[in-house]
Protein backbone atom coordinates (compact mmCIF):
# COMPACT_ATOMS: atom_id res chain seq x y z
CA UNK A 1 0.00 0.00 0.00
CA UNK A 2 1.16 3.51 -0.86
CA UNK A 3 2.30 5.59 2.08
CA UNK A 4 0.03 8.57 2.74
CA UNK A 5 1.51 11.96 1.86
CA UNK A 6 2.36 14.30 4.75
CA UNK A 7 -0.25 16.97 5.51
CA UNK A 8 0.04 20.47 4.10
CA UNK A 9 1.56 23.09 6.41
CA UNK A 10 -1.36 24.24 8.63
CA UNK A 11 -0.69 27.92 7.92
CA UNK A 12 -0.84 27.31 4.16
CA UNK A 13 -4.06 25.29 4.58
CA UNK A 14 -5.45 28.15 6.68
CA UNK A 15 -4.57 30.80 4.09
CA UNK A 16 -6.25 28.56 1.48
CA UNK A 17 -9.44 28.35 3.56
CA UNK A 18 -9.28 32.10 4.19
CA UNK A 19 -9.16 32.78 0.43
CA UNK A 20 -12.08 30.38 -0.09
CA UNK A 21 -14.06 32.24 2.58
CA UNK A 22 -13.14 35.59 1.02
CA UNK A 23 -14.33 34.36 -2.38
CA UNK A 24 -17.64 33.31 -0.78
CA UNK A 25 -18.08 36.87 0.58
CA UNK A 26 -17.23 38.31 -2.85
CA UNK A 27 -19.38 35.96 -4.92
CA UNK A 28 -22.37 35.28 -2.70
CA UNK A 29 -22.27 37.96 0.00
CA UNK A 30 -22.20 35.24 2.61
CA UNK A 31 -19.67 32.89 4.10
CA UNK A 32 -19.11 29.21 4.67
CA UNK A 33 -21.23 26.92 6.79
CA UNK A 34 -21.79 23.34 7.81
CA UNK A 35 -24.30 23.01 10.66
CA UNK A 36 -26.89 25.02 8.69
CA UNK A 37 -26.85 22.31 6.03
CA UNK A 38 -27.52 19.69 8.72
CA UNK A 39 -30.48 21.81 9.88
CA UNK A 40 -31.79 21.96 6.30
CA UNK A 41 -31.55 18.19 5.93
CA UNK A 42 -33.41 17.65 9.22
CA UNK A 43 -36.11 20.18 8.21
CA UNK A 44 -36.55 18.48 4.83
CA UNK A 45 -36.77 15.08 6.53
CA UNK A 46 -39.38 16.40 8.93
CA UNK A 47 -41.36 17.75 5.97
CA UNK A 48 -41.07 14.40 4.16
CA UNK A 49 -42.16 12.32 7.15
CA UNK A 50 -44.73 14.55 8.82
CA UNK A 51 -45.84 16.73 5.94
CA UNK A 52 -44.78 20.15 4.66
CA UNK A 53 -47.47 21.89 6.73
CA UNK A 54 -45.94 20.60 9.97
CA UNK A 55 -42.45 21.70 8.95
CA UNK A 56 -43.69 25.08 7.72
CA UNK A 57 -45.72 25.76 10.87
CA UNK A 58 -42.85 25.15 13.33
CA UNK A 59 -40.52 28.11 13.81
CA UNK A 60 -37.70 25.57 14.32
CA UNK A 61 -37.90 24.19 10.79
CA UNK A 62 -39.76 26.87 8.79
CA UNK A 63 -36.66 29.02 8.06
CA UNK A 64 -35.05 26.08 6.23
CA UNK A 65 -37.85 25.67 3.70
CA UNK A 66 -37.33 27.52 0.42
CA UNK A 67 -40.57 29.34 -0.52
CA UNK A 68 -42.44 27.03 1.85
CA UNK A 69 -41.09 23.96 0.06
CA UNK A 70 -38.61 21.54 1.60
CA UNK A 71 -35.95 21.33 -1.09
CA UNK A 72 -32.48 20.96 0.37
CA UNK A 73 -30.99 21.07 -3.13
CA UNK A 74 -32.14 24.67 -3.45
CA UNK A 75 -30.22 25.58 -0.34
CA UNK A 76 -26.82 27.26 -0.70
CA UNK A 77 -25.36 25.60 2.39
CA UNK A 78 -26.47 22.10 1.40
CA UNK A 79 -24.90 22.48 -2.05
CA UNK A 80 -21.77 23.89 -0.43
CA UNK A 81 -21.56 20.94 1.98
CA UNK A 82 -21.92 18.47 -0.89
CA UNK A 83 -18.87 20.21 -2.35
CA UNK A 84 -17.06 19.90 1.01
CA UNK A 85 -17.65 16.13 0.97
CA UNK A 86 -16.41 15.83 -2.63
CA UNK A 87 -13.37 18.05 -1.97
CA UNK A 88 -12.49 16.19 1.23
CA UNK A 89 -12.76 12.85 -0.53
CA UNK A 90 -10.65 13.81 -3.56
CA UNK A 91 -7.99 15.49 -1.44
CA UNK A 92 -7.70 12.35 0.70
CA UNK A 93 -7.74 10.15 -2.41
CA UNK A 94 -4.88 11.98 -4.14
CA UNK A 95 -2.86 11.96 -0.91
CA UNK A 96 -3.38 8.23 -0.32
CA UNK A 97 -5.33 8.94 2.88
CA UNK A 98 -8.67 7.31 2.00
CA UNK A 99 -8.92 4.40 4.38
CA UNK A 100 -11.89 2.71 5.99
CA UNK A 101 -11.20 2.90 9.69
CA UNK A 102 -11.95 4.45 13.05
CA UNK A 103 -9.67 7.06 14.60
CA UNK A 104 -9.48 6.65 18.37
CA UNK A 105 -7.20 7.40 21.29
CA UNK A 106 -4.79 4.71 22.55
CA UNK A 107 -6.77 4.04 25.79
CA UNK A 108 -10.12 3.15 24.23
CA UNK A 109 -11.39 0.73 21.59
CA UNK A 110 -13.25 1.36 18.35
CA UNK A 111 -16.67 0.68 19.88
CA UNK A 112 -16.21 3.19 22.71
CA UNK A 113 -14.97 5.71 20.17
CA UNK A 114 -18.15 5.36 18.13
CA UNK A 115 -20.33 5.85 21.23
CA UNK A 116 -18.36 8.98 22.11
CA UNK A 117 -18.62 10.21 18.51
CA UNK A 118 -22.42 9.88 18.48
CA UNK A 119 -22.80 11.42 21.96
CA UNK A 120 -20.45 14.31 21.12
CA UNK A 121 -22.26 14.82 17.83
CA UNK A 122 -25.65 15.09 19.56
CA UNK A 123 -24.41 17.73 22.02
CA UNK A 124 -22.61 19.58 19.25
CA UNK A 125 -25.66 19.56 16.96
CA UNK A 126 -27.82 20.95 19.74
CA UNK A 127 -25.20 23.56 20.64
CA UNK A 128 -24.75 24.65 17.01
CA UNK A 129 -28.50 25.21 16.66
CA UNK A 130 -28.62 27.21 19.88
CA UNK A 131 -25.62 29.30 18.81
CA UNK A 132 -27.01 29.74 15.25
CA UNK A 133 -23.88 28.28 13.68
CA UNK A 134 -20.71 26.29 14.13
CA UNK A 135 -16.97 26.56 13.59
CA UNK A 136 -17.61 27.40 9.92
CA UNK A 137 -20.66 29.65 10.02
CA UNK A 138 -19.96 31.42 13.32
CA UNK A 139 -16.26 31.14 14.17
CA UNK A 140 -14.76 31.57 10.69
CA UNK A 141 -17.42 33.45 8.71
CA UNK A 142 -18.69 35.71 11.49
CA UNK A 143 -15.32 35.91 13.23
CA UNK A 144 -13.61 37.35 10.15
CA UNK A 145 -16.42 39.95 9.90
CA UNK A 146 -15.86 40.80 13.61
CA UNK A 147 -19.43 39.77 14.52
CA UNK A 148 -19.81 40.16 18.30
CA UNK A 149 -21.83 36.95 18.69
CA UNK A 150 -19.28 34.97 16.68
CA UNK A 151 -16.48 36.00 19.04
CA UNK A 152 -18.69 35.12 22.05
CA UNK A 153 -19.13 31.69 20.41
CA UNK A 154 -15.36 31.27 19.79
CA UNK A 155 -14.52 32.20 23.39
CA UNK A 156 -17.22 29.96 24.91
CA UNK A 157 -16.33 27.03 22.67
CA UNK A 158 -12.61 26.99 23.46
CA UNK A 159 -13.11 27.80 27.16
CA UNK A 160 -15.51 24.85 27.42
CA UNK A 161 -13.21 22.50 25.48
CA UNK A 162 -10.19 23.31 27.63
CA UNK A 163 -12.15 23.25 30.90
CA UNK A 164 -13.56 19.79 30.16
CA UNK A 165 -10.41 18.34 28.52
CA UNK A 166 -9.05 16.76 31.74
CA UNK A 167 -12.37 14.89 32.18
CA UNK A 168 -12.25 13.53 28.63
CA UNK A 169 -8.55 12.64 28.81
CA UNK A 170 -9.17 8.88 28.56
CA UNK A 171 -10.83 9.36 25.17
CA UNK A 172 -7.73 10.80 23.56
CA UNK A 173 -4.56 10.21 25.61
Amino acid at each position, binding site marked *: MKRPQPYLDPYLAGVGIGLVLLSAYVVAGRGLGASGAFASVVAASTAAVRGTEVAASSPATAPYLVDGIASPLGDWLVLELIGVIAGGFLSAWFAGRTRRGIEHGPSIGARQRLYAAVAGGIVMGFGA*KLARGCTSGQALTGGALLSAGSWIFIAACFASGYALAPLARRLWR
Partner: protein
Amino acid sequence: MNAPFGETGALGPSAVLWLAPIIGFAFGWFLERGGLGNARKLAGQFYLTDLTVFKVMFSALLTAMLGAYWLDQFGLLDLQLVYLPETFVAPQAVGGVLFGAGFLVSGLCPGTSCVAAASGRLDGLAVVGGMLAGVFAFNLAFGWIEAFYDSTALGAVTLTDLAGVPRGVGVAVVTVLALGGFALAARIERRVK
Protein backbone atom coordinates in the same frame (compact mmCIF):
# COMPACT_ATOMS: atom_id res chain seq x y z
CA MET B 1 -17.05 45.21 -10.82
CA ASN B 2 -18.74 45.55 -7.49
CA ALA B 3 -18.93 42.73 -5.00
CA PRO B 4 -20.73 40.84 -3.52
CA PHE B 5 -21.82 39.80 -7.02
CA GLY B 6 -24.91 37.91 -5.82
CA GLU B 7 -26.15 41.04 -4.00
CA THR B 8 -25.31 43.69 -6.61
CA GLY B 9 -26.93 41.71 -9.42
CA ALA B 10 -23.68 40.98 -11.26
CA LEU B 11 -24.53 37.32 -10.80
CA GLY B 12 -28.04 35.86 -10.81
CA PRO B 13 -29.37 33.67 -7.99
CA SER B 14 -28.91 30.44 -9.95
CA ALA B 15 -25.30 31.32 -10.85
CA VAL B 16 -24.57 31.91 -7.17
CA LEU B 17 -26.17 28.55 -6.36
CA TRP B 18 -23.98 26.84 -8.96
CA LEU B 19 -20.88 28.30 -7.34
CA ALA B 20 -21.79 26.91 -3.90
CA PRO B 21 -20.49 23.36 -4.52
CA ILE B 22 -17.31 24.76 -6.10
CA ILE B 23 -16.60 26.93 -3.06
CA GLY B 24 -17.46 23.96 -0.82
CA PHE B 25 -15.14 21.72 -2.81
CA ALA B 26 -12.18 24.04 -2.21
CA PHE B 27 -13.12 24.34 1.50
CA GLY B 28 -13.25 20.54 1.91
CA TRP B 29 -10.01 20.16 -0.04
CA PHE B 30 -8.04 22.53 2.21
CA LEU B 31 -9.59 21.08 5.39
CA GLU B 32 -8.42 17.60 4.38
CA ARG B 33 -5.01 18.83 3.16
CA GLY B 34 -4.41 20.48 6.53
CA GLY B 35 -5.18 17.24 8.40
CA LEU B 36 -8.55 18.35 9.76
CA GLY B 37 -10.25 15.13 8.66
CA ASN B 38 -8.46 13.32 11.47
CA ALA B 39 -10.22 13.41 14.87
CA ARG B 40 -7.03 12.64 16.81
CA LYS B 41 -5.30 15.70 15.34
CA LEU B 42 -8.28 17.90 16.20
CA ALA B 43 -8.56 16.58 19.76
CA GLY B 44 -4.83 17.21 20.22
CA GLN B 45 -5.66 20.92 20.25
CA PHE B 46 -7.32 20.52 23.66
CA TYR B 47 -4.25 18.74 25.11
CA LEU B 48 -1.76 21.06 23.37
CA THR B 49 -0.15 18.10 21.64
CA ASP B 50 -1.24 19.23 18.16
CA LEU B 51 -2.01 22.87 17.43
CA THR B 52 -3.23 22.36 13.86
CA VAL B 53 -6.79 23.50 14.66
CA PHE B 54 -5.64 26.82 16.09
CA LYS B 55 -3.17 27.46 13.27
CA VAL B 56 -5.58 26.62 10.44
CA MET B 57 -8.52 28.41 12.00
CA PHE B 58 -6.82 31.66 12.86
CA SER B 59 -4.73 31.91 9.68
CA ALA B 60 -7.99 31.40 7.74
CA LEU B 61 -9.80 34.00 9.85
CA LEU B 62 -6.92 36.46 9.48
CA THR B 63 -6.72 36.00 5.69
CA ALA B 64 -10.46 36.46 5.18
CA MET B 65 -10.68 39.38 7.63
CA LEU B 66 -7.79 41.30 6.06
CA GLY B 67 -8.94 40.48 2.52
CA ALA B 68 -12.51 41.61 3.19
CA TYR B 69 -11.35 44.77 5.01
CA TRP B 70 -8.98 45.90 2.26
CA LEU B 71 -11.33 45.01 -0.62
CA ASP B 72 -13.93 47.17 1.17
CA GLN B 73 -11.42 49.99 1.67
CA PHE B 74 -10.56 49.97 -2.04
CA GLY B 75 -14.25 49.99 -2.95
CA LEU B 76 -14.21 46.54 -4.56
CA LEU B 77 -16.44 44.83 -1.98
CA ASP B 78 -19.29 46.45 -0.09
CA LEU B 79 -19.10 44.91 3.39
CA GLN B 80 -22.52 46.38 4.22
CA LEU B 81 -23.97 43.87 1.75
CA VAL B 82 -22.17 40.84 3.20
CA TYR B 83 -24.45 38.93 5.58
CA LEU B 84 -23.39 39.53 9.18
CA PRO B 85 -24.68 36.91 11.66
CA GLU B 86 -26.90 38.44 14.33
CA THR B 87 -25.75 38.48 17.94
CA PHE B 88 -27.75 36.82 20.73
CA VAL B 89 -25.40 36.95 23.73
CA ALA B 90 -26.79 34.28 26.10
CA PRO B 91 -27.81 31.56 23.61
CA GLN B 92 -24.54 31.97 21.73
CA ALA B 93 -22.52 31.70 24.95
CA VAL B 94 -24.44 28.60 26.12
CA GLY B 95 -24.46 27.16 22.58
CA GLY B 96 -20.70 27.70 22.42
CA VAL B 97 -20.18 25.86 25.73
CA LEU B 98 -22.25 22.88 24.51
CA PHE B 99 -20.52 22.99 21.14
CA GLY B 100 -17.06 22.99 22.75
CA ALA B 101 -18.00 19.99 24.91
CA GLY B 102 -19.31 18.10 21.87
CA PHE B 103 -16.24 19.08 19.84
CA LEU B 104 -13.95 17.70 22.57
CA VAL B 105 -15.84 14.41 22.97
CA SER B 106 -16.44 13.80 19.26
CA GLY B 107 -13.04 15.10 18.15
CA LEU B 108 -14.61 16.71 15.09
CA CYS B 109 -16.78 19.68 14.19
CA PRO B 110 -19.66 19.71 11.67
CA GLY B 111 -17.56 20.47 8.56
CA THR B 112 -14.62 18.27 9.51
CA SER B 113 -16.91 15.34 10.42
CA CYS B 114 -18.04 15.34 6.78
CA VAL B 115 -14.41 15.37 5.60
CA ALA B 116 -13.55 12.52 7.99
CA ALA B 117 -16.55 10.51 6.77
CA ALA B 118 -15.68 11.25 3.12
CA SER B 119 -12.18 9.84 3.60
CA GLY B 120 -13.60 6.60 5.02
CA ARG B 121 -13.50 7.25 8.77
CA LEU B 122 -16.53 5.65 10.40
CA ASP B 123 -16.11 7.81 13.51
CA GLY B 124 -16.72 10.81 11.23
CA LEU B 125 -19.93 9.20 10.00
CA ALA B 126 -20.97 8.57 13.62
CA VAL B 127 -20.49 12.28 14.41
CA VAL B 128 -22.61 13.20 11.37
CA GLY B 129 -25.37 10.89 12.63
CA GLY B 130 -25.13 12.32 16.14
CA MET B 131 -25.32 15.88 14.83
CA LEU B 132 -28.48 15.14 12.84
CA ALA B 133 -30.01 13.64 16.00
CA GLY B 134 -28.92 16.67 18.04
CA VAL B 135 -30.49 19.09 15.56
CA PHE B 136 -33.69 16.99 15.58
CA ALA B 137 -33.72 17.03 19.40
CA PHE B 138 -33.33 20.81 19.32
CA ASN B 139 -36.30 21.12 16.95
CA LEU B 140 -38.43 18.90 19.21
CA ALA B 141 -37.49 20.96 22.27
CA PHE B 142 -37.83 24.28 20.45
CA GLY B 143 -41.14 25.19 22.11
CA TRP B 144 -39.44 25.15 25.53
CA ILE B 145 -36.26 26.97 24.54
CA GLU B 146 -37.63 29.48 22.06
CA ALA B 147 -37.77 32.30 24.62
CA PHE B 148 -34.13 31.73 25.57
CA TYR B 149 -33.11 31.28 21.91
CA ASP B 150 -34.43 34.75 21.10
CA SER B 151 -33.17 36.43 24.29
CA THR B 152 -30.37 39.02 24.67
CA ALA B 153 -30.62 40.06 21.02
CA LEU B 154 -28.23 42.81 19.93
CA GLY B 155 -28.92 42.60 16.19
CA ALA B 156 -26.21 42.38 13.54
CA VAL B 157 -23.38 44.10 15.37
CA THR B 158 -19.60 43.87 15.27
CA LEU B 159 -17.19 44.14 18.17
CA THR B 160 -16.06 47.50 16.81
CA ASP B 161 -19.69 48.75 16.67
CA LEU B 162 -20.05 47.87 20.36
CA ALA B 163 -16.73 49.48 21.29
CA GLY B 164 -17.53 52.57 19.21
CA VAL B 165 -14.25 52.45 17.31
CA PRO B 166 -13.57 52.23 13.56
CA ARG B 167 -13.52 48.75 12.01
CA GLY B 168 -9.80 49.10 11.24
CA VAL B 169 -9.01 49.18 14.96
CA GLY B 170 -10.69 45.78 15.44
CA VAL B 171 -8.91 44.40 12.39
CA ALA B 172 -5.56 45.59 13.79
CA VAL B 173 -6.23 44.17 17.27
CA VAL B 174 -7.30 40.75 15.92
CA THR B 175 -4.23 40.71 13.65
CA VAL B 176 -1.86 41.43 16.55
CA LEU B 177 -3.61 38.82 18.77
CA ALA B 178 -3.47 36.17 16.04
CA LEU B 179 0.22 36.80 15.32
CA GLY B 180 0.89 36.65 19.08
CA GLY B 181 -1.03 33.36 19.16
CA PHE B 182 1.09 31.94 16.34
CA ALA B 183 4.28 32.87 18.21
CA LEU B 184 2.88 31.28 21.37
CA ALA B 185 1.98 28.13 19.40
CA ALA B 186 5.59 27.86 18.22
CA ARG B 187 6.82 28.18 21.82
CA ILE B 188 4.38 25.50 23.07
CA GLU B 189 5.54 23.16 20.32
CA ARG B 190 9.21 23.65 21.23
CA ARG B 191 8.41 22.90 24.89
CA VAL B 192 6.39 19.76 24.08
CA LYS B 193 9.25 18.48 21.91
